[in-house]
């Protein structure tokens, strides 16, 4: 037996053991439901309804795909119907006009839709919230208008008729169920692991996530493209089922319906979109009944009911039906908290990466229109030292930190580590070089747990933590995930938050949240840590604790830059300080030395001593 084979067998055996260990009643229930759905056509008299059922399942696949964008990445896309249409017409054109066989045409449809999703993602990448919704909504109009404007390509109002397929509606249904299960499982695997946590961090506080080296733009683009590709596959298969691609099917109402399904059922759980679609189908049947009784067009009644449903969910907090039902179930049947699955993860105290070189800034300047925020700043952060950056409000301290961290580009000046220039490096690259900054505001991710927040930082050093490897759970990805967890727990232990690992970060006190921010930054294994007002609002006891932590980090060889207004705290921790006033450095040295400086006294007007 070859080595590779032995490794595969051993990995499979390990996987089997882990599966047995992790098997739960919920997994049994899910297996029974999926099994029942798969055998239903064989035991129930459904043959006449199979096309409708298969069509519903494909729509559910697209809705779960949309949850990747809306739920995981927080992109409020109203263009999923357009991607379904692109996939459908790519398939129909390849099959009806190109005469392609089924599998190549499906692959083509997925690729075309993924490409369209990538382009749309690039175009909307810099937009946020409502603007993304509006632009994707426009996209859904553009697609349907394009299709109807070129009847030679799309078949016009009569649609494009596909060659007869060998797949029966029952085969489509079974295939759809398999795809739906895969889409749900992929969501469940990704959401609590590195890619999902990074996306969640980007969704909640993009700036803080970028500060920890999360490639926010790339991840969001990936999630959007994946969401589009899933819709493309569903669209391609659904036209194979319908045997006709009709432009009017993929109008903006379809996008609206899918979005409502996701929001109605709950975007943060893959079962939410399925539940949402079931509710909308129920609305549709109800609308038919009301329409026939009252002589109203059913379509209008359906839209009305769907709108009321959406308003109800939003009025109840917007989490969706499935999370609300789960919450209610947990209240009715509280269960003992499951033991944290971290038996193998022993925390390791944070260690700085090989750190013998200083972080050096020379001549940093930044102007915001007429305001000169920073003027010709020179700064040197030696490993194993704490440098305080002080000055009155508006003196340019935070600007300096942002320039060092790569959050802002300087107008002039350079930043280097060990002689290597970081000028061209964006924030993530600087974080990879070990230069990490924290935000002035409390940059935590309130919906993540404490451990998950630290894992976002620990994800920076991962090489095998991409979506595909995470989905496949390759041995390297698993080993690296365990290592990242050890690092994250170590950072939490260091700051004293390990006991709170499973609490939502939003439930921590303000000081604990600042400690969590520090732990997340430490989990990135920085060489230079740039802290913006870490002691703001802390009690004397908390200040002592924080000072001890910083001192510990200094002894571990980290270079620390601390921006702080609390001069007692600065005196307690800083080896040297730089004083800024109106963007210019006015003094530098030990705090005692600069305190005697006349300019410094003048800057701190009203203080006889600093």
């Amino acid at each position: 037996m070859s080595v590779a084979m032995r490794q595969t067998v051993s990995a499979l055996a390990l996987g089997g053991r882990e599966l047995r260990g992790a098997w739960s009643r919920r997994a049994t229930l899910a297996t029974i439901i999926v099994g029942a759905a798969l055998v239903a056509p064989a035991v129930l008299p459904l043959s006449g309804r199979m096309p409708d059922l298969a069509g519903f399942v494909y729509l559910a696949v697209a809705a779960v795909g949309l949850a990747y964008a809306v739920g995981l990445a927080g992109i409020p896309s109203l263009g999923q119907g357009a991607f379904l249409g692109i996939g459908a017409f790519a398939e129909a054109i390849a099959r009806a006009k190109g005469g392609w066989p089924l599998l190549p045409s499906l692959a083509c449809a997925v690729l075309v839709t993924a490409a369209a999703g990538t382009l749309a993602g690039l175009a909307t990448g810099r937009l946020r919230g409502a603007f993304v919704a509006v632009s994707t909504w426009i996209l859904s109009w553009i697609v349907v208008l394009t299709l109807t404007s070129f009847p030679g390509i799309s078949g016009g109002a009569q649609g494009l008729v596909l060659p007869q397929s060998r797949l029966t509606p029952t085969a489509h249904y079974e295939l759809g169920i398999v795809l739906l299960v895969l889409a749900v499982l992929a969501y469940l695997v990704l959401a609590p692991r590195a890619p999902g946590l990074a996306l969640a961090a980007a969704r909640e506080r993009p700036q803080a996530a970028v500060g920890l080296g999360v490639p926010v733009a790339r991840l969001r683009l990936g999630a959007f493209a994946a969401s589009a590709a899933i819709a493309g596959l569903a669209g391609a298969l659904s036209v194979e089922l319908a045997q006709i691609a009709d432009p009017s099917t993929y109008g903006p109402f379809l996008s609206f319906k899918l979005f409502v399904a996701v929001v109605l059922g709950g975007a943060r759980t893959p079962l939410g979109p399925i539940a949402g679609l079931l509710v909308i189908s129920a609305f549709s049947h109800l609308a038919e009944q009301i329409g026939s009784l009252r002589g109203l067009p059913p379509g209008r009644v359906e839209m009305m009911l769907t709108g009321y449903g959406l308003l109800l969910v939003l009025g109840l907090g917007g989490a969706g039906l499935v999370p609300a039902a789960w919450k209610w179930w947990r209240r009715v049947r509280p269960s003992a908290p499951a033991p944290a699955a971290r038996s193998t993860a022993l925390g390791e105290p944070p260690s700085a990466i090989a750190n013998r070189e200083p972080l050096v800034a020379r001549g940093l300047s930044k102007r915001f229109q007429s305001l000169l925020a920073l003027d010709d700043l020179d700064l040197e952060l030696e490993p194993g030292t704490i440098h305080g950056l002080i000055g009155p409000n508006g003196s340019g301290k935070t600007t300096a930190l942002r320039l060092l961290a790569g959050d802002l580009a300087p107008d002039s000046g350079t930043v280097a580590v060990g002689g290597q220039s970081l000028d061209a490096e964006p924030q993530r690259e600087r974080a990879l070089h070990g230069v990490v900054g924290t935000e002035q505001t409390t940059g935590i991710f309130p919906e993540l747990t404490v451990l998950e927040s630290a894992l976002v930082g620990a994800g920076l050093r991962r090489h095998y933590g991409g979506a595909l490897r995470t989905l496949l759970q390759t041995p390297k990805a698993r080993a690296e995930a365990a290592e990242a967890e050890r690092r994250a727990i170590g950072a939490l232990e260091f700051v004293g938050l390990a006991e709170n690992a499973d609490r939502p970060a939003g439930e921590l006190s303000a000081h604990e949240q600042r400690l969590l921010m520090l732990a997340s930054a430490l989990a990135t294994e920085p060489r230079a840590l740039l802290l913006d007002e870490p002691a703001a609002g802390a009690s004397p006891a908390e200040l002592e604790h924080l000072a001890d932590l910083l001192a510990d980090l200094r002894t571990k060889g980290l270079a620390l830059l601390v921006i702080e207004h609390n001069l007692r705290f600065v005196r307690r921790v800083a080896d040297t300080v730089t004083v800024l006033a109106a963007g210019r450095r006015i003094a530098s040295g030990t705090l005692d030395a600069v305190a005697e400086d006349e300019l410094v006294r003048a800057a701190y007007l009203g203080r006889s001593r600093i």
Partner: protein
Amino acid sequence: MQRLAIPLALCVLCAGCGGSDAPKAKTKTLLIAVNAPFSRTPYLGQTIANGAELAATAITTKDGEYRLRFKRYDTGLSAGEAVANVRRAVADGAVAIIDEGTGLNASWRIAADADVPICVTYQGGEGLVDPTKRPNVFRIAPTDHGTAFRLAEYLVPKKLKIALVIDDSTYGQEGLKSLRRSFAENPEAVAMRLSVPAGAANLAPEVLRARRSHATALLVWGEPGTIAGVVSAARASGWKVPVYTPATGGDPLVRQQLANHPDWVDGLTFATGRPTAEVGPGPFLSFQRLYEERFGVYLVGVKTPDGADVVQPPDLAMYSYDFVNVLSAAIQRAGGVKDGKKVIAALNQVSVPGANGDHRGFNERNHEGVVDDDVYFARFEGMTYQPVKDDPLSRNLTALDQTR
């Protein structure tokens, strides 16, 4: 033992009472699906369904007695939905489908696989009906080919410069194919061709373009809303151009949308299948009476200059009515519905008197129930229409009473 004897005796008694020498014939129900745009163009959908429901309701064959049941499936004018409806109808066990025509290019196969005949009773698109390739597809409605050629035949001698305005509905796109062919030999008669979106709120820019092309007539082929939009845009701009349309021009929706400007409707001329035949208006008037007794009159919602309510004659309904009667005859001939192929074959062999007095029927080589020449022209005046006097076929037709 005694306790058992009494129930046993009762059972024997009951069995004796319930039995008879000859088994009682059971009436079976046959489902006929009506696949039409009930929500998008309610008048059209309702009329097709009403016509079908007015026809034969029971069929007696050697296989037994059948009662007909009709089920409505709404296409919303979407080809995808129309195809899905045909699938549902087949699943529901429909023995025949009466179809408006949208999505037929895909739906006929589904019906063919189940040996279910489909009859188109509205759309006249070329290629929809092909006895060789689509043996289960029949049509009782004027063809686009016939309508377009009759329009060309009528308009070209008038030396008009015609702007063809086509909307992007299935109806419009199918009509365009026929118009291209019908005007191919007289390209000088066409000033320009314009494509407009069906259901557009404002067609003023398109109409302006047509006017700038020096067109002296508009031929609008599209949904009723498109026709109303074009007439409205032309008249609002003061352009008194003659407007010609296919059958959709006679749809009540056109007059309803132009109700505030009755004079704008005057002169609008449309081509449609003739409701009366050589035998005179008698058969159609009988059909109309029957229809109105059952469903009431269809009030258009506008009045004549004299203040009379305008009603819509059920001319479109006669096509679905005729098909159900042809189907009934075919089922009788086939001896039942057990074998769909036999019913389809029988449809090629029967003919029945139609609602307008013509004979309706098909054969192996021709699945068109209305011949191309059976298209006449009617012109609106005072919110009602009369056959035109400048066309030989139309001139001899009797005007239908359209007021109450």
